[in-house]
């Protein structure tokens, strides 16, 4: 994250009223103050702190110096002191120094209290209306929080003050765009173009016109957009983007046949494997008009729709024979004999090429029982034919290679695995292993089957076998790690992760957490939970939340950058995406566990269980290990001490030449302390108010996982304990709506009826009485 630059690089026009002597500095201290600012900006925090201290010796109540000192301390991780100093600085300067307000804003921003920071910046602006630095910082935060109204004002101001800077124009246009004032945005861009030359390079020019086109499209004026596309044909280098917009415009204007033609061009000339284009192609075909458009390939469709889509895809397949995807998608809509012939052709082709991913490609076909039956007959007959006659039954004259038989056996095993007939699947995979025991993928499939049979130790052993066959293979290593975690062997999993670590000396946790490896965090949390240690489990699950916060925070860098680089389409899309990140399944998965976790913590505390006693310190060093480490370190010191003596002698004569200040250079370098990182990743679990902490996760679930029964059940439990009867009712009704046969439903109903409503207001009691929960 870029270091926020302090506003006091510019001589403050009105800082503090001259009548207050303690707030103005004599010339010597003024130069020192400027030095403090410079040192802060060049990251020499300790030095800045020293100089600030020397000013404070003679002027202990100088507000602005106090604030600057606070700022340097905040970077040196002394947060509490920093806040105290900054607040003191504000009061000493009687809240009339824009520098103090700015610094306070910077502190809040670093702690991600964006709303508070915005307030501080606004206060700073009240004092110094035209402070460019504050305005820029404010604009950045307003975009981050999507406060479009405030952003409009700020960006307008910036444009007024510096109309010569290109990105102020762009920033203003973007603000208008985000506020949905499309015509104003276009007008701004037009004015910008007439006054200044917006773009330098070919790519920037292209992006600039495409951005204008995007605004036109969003404003809903499709005809204008189409005309504009024609006009910018030679300037824009994004041919695909133009075609996509064109097609969308035609659909917006309800001209499906024109759109259909454009999609065909996209498929044929640009990307014949693009599932999106193919779906749009199908939906804009004449035969599909008046019918419900397809939204997903994998959901089973009505017979009528299947027939229509089949014909369209068959036709497309002939026109674009190179497309693998089309050939596969046809299988989803084919029926009966057509399905049989096509599946034979498709699967046999890939069996001959021995592609392990074949079986995952067929997953969606298992939605239809009829197809399952056809496939079973086919696969088993092929396996037999290959084993006994080395050929496929359909082509008895062609001899197949030995491994085609192997993959066929694996395919049959995978088929039964998918049907959940695990015993049969196991027998088949054992046959495959007997055929060629050196193939890793066979053991992986075997492990999967065993896992589903709940034989976790055997599954783990199978994966280990696979992993040992090629210890340099990272995929196998990762699989082994996962299976160890499922088997609650946390230390083993950790040891394996370390084998692929970048820096073996660092705690392995850093590898996982720095890489934001959420699946590992969730699995590890699950393992701790199963072992009874709920606190550590919560720490792991909460890391997922932290990552999402970090991802959101990382967007801050782009606000300035994108305006300069004119990559505006991608920028706007990123802004919108950022608001939806809590939509991601992995976040919701973690959120469910977190809510469940907090609820259990509360329950166990009520029962008087000491949760800290259950914490498993799996990675704490034993006494022996500590002693060994100390001995090792002592030896290193002895060896290192000899080395240090030599350069010192060389350094001495030069010392007098260097200035005194440079003595401190060593301290000021930011040392990356790996144990500090580990502390950062050791999150605190709220044991005081667990139910309160759980609320924001429950709200995310309510907003983004409305179809998930488990999520509602988990929220039900939470609100029951928080004594919010209406919310409890809401979630109960959702569960009933989604799944009448949900296993916990009768128990939930009982708990609901047993709720104590004596404290609830009369209106609430009325609603509870009247709503049916049968």
């Amino acid at each position: 994250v870029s270091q926020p630059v302090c506003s006091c690089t510019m001589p403050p026009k009105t800082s503090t009223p001259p009548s207050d002597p303690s707030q103005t500095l004599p010339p010597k201290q003024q130069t020192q103050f400027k030095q403090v600012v410079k040192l802060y900006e060049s990251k020499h925090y300790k030095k800045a702190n020293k100089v600030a201290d020397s000013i404070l010796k003679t002027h202990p109540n100088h507000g602005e110096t106090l604030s600057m000192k606070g700022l340097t301390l905040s970077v040196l991780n002394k947060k509490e002191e920093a806040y105290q100093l900054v607040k003191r600085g504000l009061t000493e300067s009687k809240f009339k120094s824009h520098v103090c307000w700015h610094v306070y804003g910077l502190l809040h921003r670093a702690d991600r209290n964006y709303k508070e920071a915005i307030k501080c910046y606004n206060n700073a602006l009240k004092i110094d209306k035209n402070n460019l630095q504050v305005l820029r910082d404010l604009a950045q935060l307003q975009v981050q929080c999507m406060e479009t109204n405030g952003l409009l004002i700020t960006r307008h101001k910036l444009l007024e003050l510096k109309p010569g800077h290109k990105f102020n124009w762009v920033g203003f246009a973007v603000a208008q765009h985000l506020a949905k004032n499309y015509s104003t945005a276009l007008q701004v861009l037009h004015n910008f173009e007439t006054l200044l030359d917006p773009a330098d390079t070919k790519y920037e020019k292209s992006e600039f016109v495409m951005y204008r086109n995007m605004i036109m499209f969003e404003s809903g004026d499709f005809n204008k957009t189409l005309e504009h596309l024609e006009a910018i044909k030679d300037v824009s280098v994004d041919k695909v983007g133009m075609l996509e917009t064109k097609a969308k415009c035609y659909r917006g204007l309800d001209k499906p046949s024109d759109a259909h033609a454009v999609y065909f061009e996209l498929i044929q000339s640009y990307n014949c494997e693009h599932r999106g284009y193919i779906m749009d192609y199908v939906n804009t075909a004449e035969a599909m008009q008046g019918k419900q458009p397809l939204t997903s390939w994998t959901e089973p469709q009505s017979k009528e729709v299947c027939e229509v889509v089949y014909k369209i895809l068959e036709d497309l397949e002939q026109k674009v024979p190179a497309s693998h995807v089309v050939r596969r998608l046809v299988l989803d809509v084919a029926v009966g004999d057509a399905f049989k012939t096509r599946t034979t052709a498709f699967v046999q082709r890939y069996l001959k090429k021995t592609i392990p991913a074949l079986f995952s490609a067929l997953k969606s076909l298992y939605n239809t029982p009829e197809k399952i039956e056809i496939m079973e007959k086919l696969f088993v007959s092929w396996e037999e034919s290959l084993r006994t006659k080395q050929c496929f039954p359909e082509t008895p004259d062609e001899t197949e290679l030995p491994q085609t038989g192997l993959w066929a056996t694996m395919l049959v095993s995978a088929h039964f695995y998918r049907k959940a007939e695990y015993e049969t699947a196991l027998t088949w995979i054992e046959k495959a292993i007997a055929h060629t025991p050196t193939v890793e993928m066979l053991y992986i499939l075997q492990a999967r089957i065993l896992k589903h049979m709940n034989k976790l130790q055997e599954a783990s052993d199978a994966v280990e076998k696979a992993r040992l066959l090629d210890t340099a293979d990272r995929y196998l290593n990762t699989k082994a790690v996962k299976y160890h975690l499922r088997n609650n062997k946390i230390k083993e999993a950790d040891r394996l992760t370390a084998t692929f670590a970048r820096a073996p000396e660092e705690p392995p946790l850093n590898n996982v957490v720095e890489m934001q490896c959420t699946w590992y965090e969730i699995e590890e949390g699950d393992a701790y939970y199963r072992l009874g240690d709920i606190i550590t489990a919560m720490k792991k699950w909460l890391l997922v939340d932290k990552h999402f916060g970090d991802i959101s925070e990382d967007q801050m860098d782009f606000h300035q950058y994108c305006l300069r680089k004119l990559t505006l389409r991608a920028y706007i899309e990123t802004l919108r995406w950022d608001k939806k990140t809590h939509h991601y399944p992995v976040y919701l998965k973690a959120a469910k566990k977190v809510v469940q976790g907090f609820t259990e913590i509360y329950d166990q505390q009520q029962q008087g269980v000491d949760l800290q006693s259950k914490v498993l310190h799996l990675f704490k060093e034993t006494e022996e290990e500590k002693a060994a480490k100390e001995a090792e370190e002592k030896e290193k010191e002895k060896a290192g001490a000899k080395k240090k003596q030599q350069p010192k002698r060389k350094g001495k004569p030069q010392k007098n030449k260097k200035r005194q200040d440079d003595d401190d250079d060593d301290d000021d370098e930011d040392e990356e302390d790996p144990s500090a990182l580990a502390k950062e990743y050791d999150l605190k679990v709220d044991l005081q108010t667990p139910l309160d902490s759980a609320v924001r996760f429950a709200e995310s679930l309510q907003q983004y996982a409305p179809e998930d029964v488990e999520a509602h059940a988990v929220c039900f439990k939470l609100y029951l304990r928080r004594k919010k009867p209406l919310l409890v009712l809401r979630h109960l009704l959702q569960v009933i709506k989604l799944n009448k046969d949900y296993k916990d439903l009768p128990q939930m109903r009982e708990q609901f009826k047993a709720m104590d409503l004596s404290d609830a207001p009369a209106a609430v009691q009325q609603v509870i009485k009247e709503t049916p929960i049968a």
Partner: protein
Amino acid sequence: STKTKMKNSVVTQPRGDAAPLKINFVGVTKANVKQLQTLNLAIFPVRYSPKFYSEVVLKPEHQNIIKLAYHCGNLIGAICCRLEDNDQKDLKGQHRVYIMTLGVPAPYRDHGVGSVLLQAVLEWLEAENAAAAENGKPKPFSDMWLHVQEGNT
């Protein structure tokens, strides 16, 4: 000397009707030695000790006389030889090459895999001998031999 270059991939020439297979030769390393172990365990009635794999197989001087045959990314055959000293007085200083294991799993037999494995090692040995003769040095390898299991027809 290990300067003689080895061919890395060949196509087998089966004697019968079976299809020729494209084979890649790969040297054995710590990372893939377990594959060799699994292969031998499946093919041979004799179980070799872990030392066999950790010490003998991974010796640097055996690098060129131990070959793994890969077909379409799967291990389907291997040959492991080792160097021995010569007992005969007049051939002292020359090594004998002893074939410890040579095997192909059942489904892949009769495709000529065993032949190419043996051929690969032989070619290298002969090339080394020829190179030495050119430089006027004595031949490093004298002969190759092996034991056959009783009942292996």
